[in-house]
C-alpha cells in the first residue's frame, strides 16, 4: 500500500460561497497530498469544510483559488444516503453506472454479477431499493461506485446513519475491497473512533474557515476492530487533537 506516487494533490485550495462582497469562506488554503493506495480519513465537526473538500476533489464544485490534481484518475463517490435511483432495481442501478462509463451492453450483465459478489449481495439484483435495509443499500451504492472502475473513492460519512453492527461489517468490507483493488480512499467522518479504525492517516480539520489542523499517521496493524484497545488509544489521541484546537479557539 505504500506507493510513493501521489494520487490526489490538493494545492492551497480555498473555497468561498455566497455573493461577491458577502462571501463565507468554507476552506482556506488547504493543501494535502494523498499517496496512491492510501486510506485517508478526514475528521472534523460539522461545518469544518470536510464535505466541501470532498466535493471539490469530486469535481462537483470548483475551487475559488488553488488547484486539485488527480493525475487523470477516475473518481467514485458515496454519500451518507445511498442515493440509489428508486425507479431502478439493484441491477438497474449498477447497470446505469456501467452504461454511463461506456461499458458495452454484452459485458454489463456479467460485470453486475461480479460487483454484487464483491459487495456480498448475490441474488438481490431484482430487488428495489426500498425493499433493502440501510446497510444493503450502502453496499449497492458501493457496488455502483466500483462499477465506474474508479481508482479514487470518495466517501462522505457513508456509514453515519447505520447501526453499529452494520457499520462494523461495512468497515470490514470497505477495508477488504480497498486492499483487493488498490483503491485510494478519502473517507470523511465526524466519528473519531471510526477514523482511528479505518485510516492510514487521519487529517483533522478545524472550522472558521475550514483548514487542516493536524495530519496524524496511524500505522496500527490491520485487521483492526472498533473495540481494539490500540484503536481506542489512537482515538483518544485524535480526540485530544480536536480538543486542543477547541482550547486554542477559546483562547483566541
Amino acid at each position, binding site marked *: 500500500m505504500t506507493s510513493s506516487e501521489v494520487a490526489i494533490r490538493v494545492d492551497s485550495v480555498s473555497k468561498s460561497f455566497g455573493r461577491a462582497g458577502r462571501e463565507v469562506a468554507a476552506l482556506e488554503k488547504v493543501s494535502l497530498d494523498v499517496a496512491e493506495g492510501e486510506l485517508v480519513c478526514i475528521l472534523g465537526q460539522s461545518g469544518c469544510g470536510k464535505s466541501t473538500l470532498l466535493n471539490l476533489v469530486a469535481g462537483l464544485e470548483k475551487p475559488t483559488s488553488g488547484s486539485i490534481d488527480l493525475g487523470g484518475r477516475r473518481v467514485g463517490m458515496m*454519500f451518507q444516503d445511498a442515493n440509489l435511483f428508486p*425507479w431502478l432495481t439493484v441491477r438497474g442501478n449498477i447497470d446505469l453506472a456501467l452504461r454511463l462509463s461506456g461499458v458495452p451492453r454484452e459485458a454489463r450483465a456479467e460485470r453486475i454479477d461480479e460487483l454484487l459478489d464483491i459487495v456480498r449481495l448475490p441474488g438481490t439484483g431484482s430487488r*428495489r431499493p426500498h425493499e433493502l435495509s440501510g446497510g444493503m443499500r450502502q453496499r449497492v451504492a458501493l457496488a455502483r461506485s466500483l462499477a465506474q472502475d474508479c481508482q479514487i473513492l470518495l466517501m462522505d460519512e457513508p456509514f453515519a446513519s447505520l447501526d453499529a453492527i452494520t457499520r462494523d461489517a461495512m468497515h470490514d468490507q470497505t477495508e477488504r475491497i480497498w486492499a483487493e483493488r488498490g483503491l485510494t480512499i478519502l473517507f470523511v467522518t465526524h466519528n473519531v473512533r471510526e477514523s482511528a479504525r479505518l485510516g492510514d492517516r487521519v487529517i483533522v480539520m478545524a472550522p472558521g474557515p475550514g483548514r487542516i489542523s493536524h495530519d496524524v499517521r496511524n500505522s496500527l496493524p490491520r485487521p483492526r476492530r472498533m473495540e481494539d484497545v490500540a484503536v481506542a488509544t489512537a482515538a483518544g489521541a485524535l480526540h485530544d487533537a480536536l480538543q486542543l484546537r477547541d482550547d486554542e479557539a477559546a483562547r483566541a
Partner: protein
Amino acid sequence: MLRALGRRTWPPVLAILIALVIWQVTVWSGWKPSYVLPGPAAVFEALGEQLATEKFWIAIATTMSRALVGFGISLALGTAIGLAVSSSRVLRAAVGSLITGLQTMPSIAWFPFAILLFGITEQAITFVVVLGAAPSIANGVISGTDDVPPQLVRTAQVLGARGASLYRHVMVPAALPAYLAGLKQGWAFAWRSLMAGELLVIIAARPSLGVQLQFFREFADTAGLISTMIVILVVGVLVDRVFSVMANRVRANRGLGVVRL
C-alpha cells in the same frame, strides 16, 4: 381476495345508494313536478333506452374521438413545452408563470375567440381542449423535474451523467410520478373543455354527448338529460381511473405511498 374486494367495494356502493335515496326522497317530497325532476327509476329507464339506440353510440364515438385527439395533441405539446421550460432558465423566466396563468383561465372563456378563429368546426373544439389540458401536462413535467432530489442529481453527476444523458437517465424517470399527476389533471381539464365545446360549437349532423344534452334540454326531457350526464360522469371517472392505476403502479415500484382507489 373476495373479502378484500368486498371491503374496497362497499364504501362507494354505499355512497351511491345514499345519493340515490336522497334523490328519490327529494322527488317524493314534491319539490318539483316529476317531469322537471324525475326519480332514479325513470332516469335509469331512459339510460337503458339510450344505450339501445345507434345514435347514442355514434355520439359517444364522436365525443371520445375528439377527446382522444385533443388529449393526444395536449400530451405531445405539453410534454415538449414542459421539457423545454424545465431545462432552460430563459424560457422559464419568459413563460413559466404564463403556463400557470393559462391553467387558471376557464376554458369556456376561449370559445368565442376559437369560434371567430376557426368557425363552428372541429378545430375550434380541439383548440380549446388543448389550451385546457396542455398547461397542466407541462406543469407536471416542470414541477416533476424541479422536485428531483438534488442529491440524486449529484450522484448522477458523479456517475458521469451530464446534459442530455442526465435528463434521459435521471431527470425524466425521477419526474414520472409528477408527470402522471399532470396527465390526470390534464385529462380532467380536457374533458371539461370538451363538454363546454360540444355545447357551444354544435356542428350539424354530428351527434355527440354535448349535442345530446342540448337536444334533451330543448325537448324538456330531463330523464334523458340526466342519463347523459351520468354517462359523461362515468366516462370521466373511468379514464381518471386509468391514470390513477398507472400512477399507483409507479409509486409502488418506488416504495412511495399508494393512493387507495
